[in-house]
């Protein structure tokens, strides 16, 4: 059996000497699966995200990417992962092409390969004709598409996105959500998508509900609903959160 694209086991994390931001978190994302990390603001999504991308490191628990331990072999693990951060990370004064080639260089792609893949990835997003425009001239939705194209340049097996639709209008949001679902289906990429918006989750997705640093439920949307005794994911989510508050 092949290792899951992402596996997190017994991960805990506290900022300084404060309370735990994450406590005993375990989850797995299989190839070709769209897994939504669902939680209210402050649930620990961004902390988990920062640990998975190794912006910081926890001493308790393990994170494996395609079976490679992130702490033991970070470069090999990070090479398999594409990342879209919540905050925009494009250079506004550079063109789309320059942004993509910079990223490709960081991943060691030869220039010709990088050029070809950049064009291909932008075509898929319907952004190919904007390749020589500076990012500053693009709207928020288009910038996100460029970031998504960039995250795929090195053909990662795992794509992690931290609330990637924040600040986008409804059509732009829908376009990004659909596009990432397509990537899962058509290319078998494993996706971990952090969000607090339930309407971004499709009925056949998997969902991991996180609240106050702990996993409250995990599995296919149908199973989570059944276990929570609810009809819809919205109801399940509200019950899971309310149970904690009570």
């Amino acid at each position, binding site marked *: 059996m092949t290792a899951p694209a992402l596996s997190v086991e017994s991960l805990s*994390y506290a*900022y*300084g000497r404060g309370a735990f*931001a994450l406590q005993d978190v375990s989850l797995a994302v299989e190839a070709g699966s769209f897994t939504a990390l669902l939680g209210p*603001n*402050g649930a*620990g*999504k*961004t*902390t988990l995200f*920062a640990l998975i*991308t*190794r*912006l*910081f*490191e926890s*001493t308790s628990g393990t994170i494996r990417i395609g079976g490679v331990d992130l702490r033991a072999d*970070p*470069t*090999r*693990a*990070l*090479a398999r*992962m594409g*990342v879209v*951060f*919540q*905050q*925009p*990370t494009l*250079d*506004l*004064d*550079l063109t789309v092409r*320059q942004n993509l*080639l*910079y*990223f*490709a*260089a*960081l*991943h*060691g*792609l*030869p*220039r010709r*390969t990088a050029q070809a893949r950049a064009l291909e990835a932008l075509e898929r997003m319907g952004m190919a004709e904007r390749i020589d425009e500076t990012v500053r001239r693009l709207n928020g939705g288009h910038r996100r598409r460029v970031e998504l194209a960039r995250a795929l340049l*090195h*053909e990662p097996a795992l794509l992690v996105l931290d609330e990637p639709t924040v600040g986008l209008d409804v059509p732009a949001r829908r376009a990004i959500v659909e596009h990432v679902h397509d990537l899962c289906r058509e290319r078998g990429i494993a996706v971990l998508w952090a969000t607090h918006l339930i309407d971004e989750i499709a009925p056949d997705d998997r969902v991991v509900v996180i609240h106050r640093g702990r996993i409250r439920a995990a599995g296919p949307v149908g199973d989570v609903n059944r276990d929570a005794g609810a009809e819809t994911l919205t109801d399940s989510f509200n019950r899971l959160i309310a149970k904690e508050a009570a």
Partner: protein
Amino acid sequence: MTVTASSLGAAHYARALGGIVGREVLRFVHQRERFLSALVRPLLWLFVFAAGFRAALGIAITPPYETYIPYEVYIAPGLVGMIQLFNGMQSSLSMVYDREMGSMRMLLVSPLPRWFLLTAKLLAGTAVSILQVYAFLAIAWIYGVQAPPLGYVTLLPALVVSGLMLGALGMLLSSAIRQLENFAGVMNFVIFPTFFLSTALYPLWKMQEAGELLYTICAVNPFSQAVELIRHALYMKLNAEALGWTVLALAVFLGGAIYGYNPARGFLARRGAGAE
């Protein structure tokens, strides 16, 4: 075709370094105001401050100079150091602001060792500072502040060392300072003391006349060492002592910065907490 980055080894490092330096230079070219302000600052010192002080300050013969020199000639290497000091602070401390922080995150999640990424970023900042320095020296040349032509070549390696050292200082500060409201704090508490308590504006012996404490501070200030390294290199001389101290300061600052950005230490964690 599958090209996996980690299998490429040295080529991967070279491409990444090229990418990081290339990006910094491109950004610099696009930000004309940044270039302009980097030039205006030292030129004001040269045209206004130095011109005014020329009459008040006599500079005796002091190495590497072999004759009496006008004050503008003395101050020029100090202003070169000032360009690199500002650049080092700005390029690192701009990371403190969110937008640059985002691109720093992007950099740090690339599949390369962190020490390499930070060093490459420093080299990139140094490359930009060197472009600024030569632009300044070109204008100074036209103004009449001229060093031997070959000095502009021997200056280059000195600029690399001093630029790296001052950039590493900025990077270290950016990892240590939790929050920064604006650039003014750094100006007051880092840049001005570093600049004024150095040999950039007056030679050490002049400081000694003013007081022993001031003299000592100026003498141990790494920025003084960098300025003296630059000053001698511009006149085709190697100041081995200044080189040694500058390299030592570079090693200490860079080591501190790499430690500061160590993921287990969680500097980014503290900052990341704000985003949650």
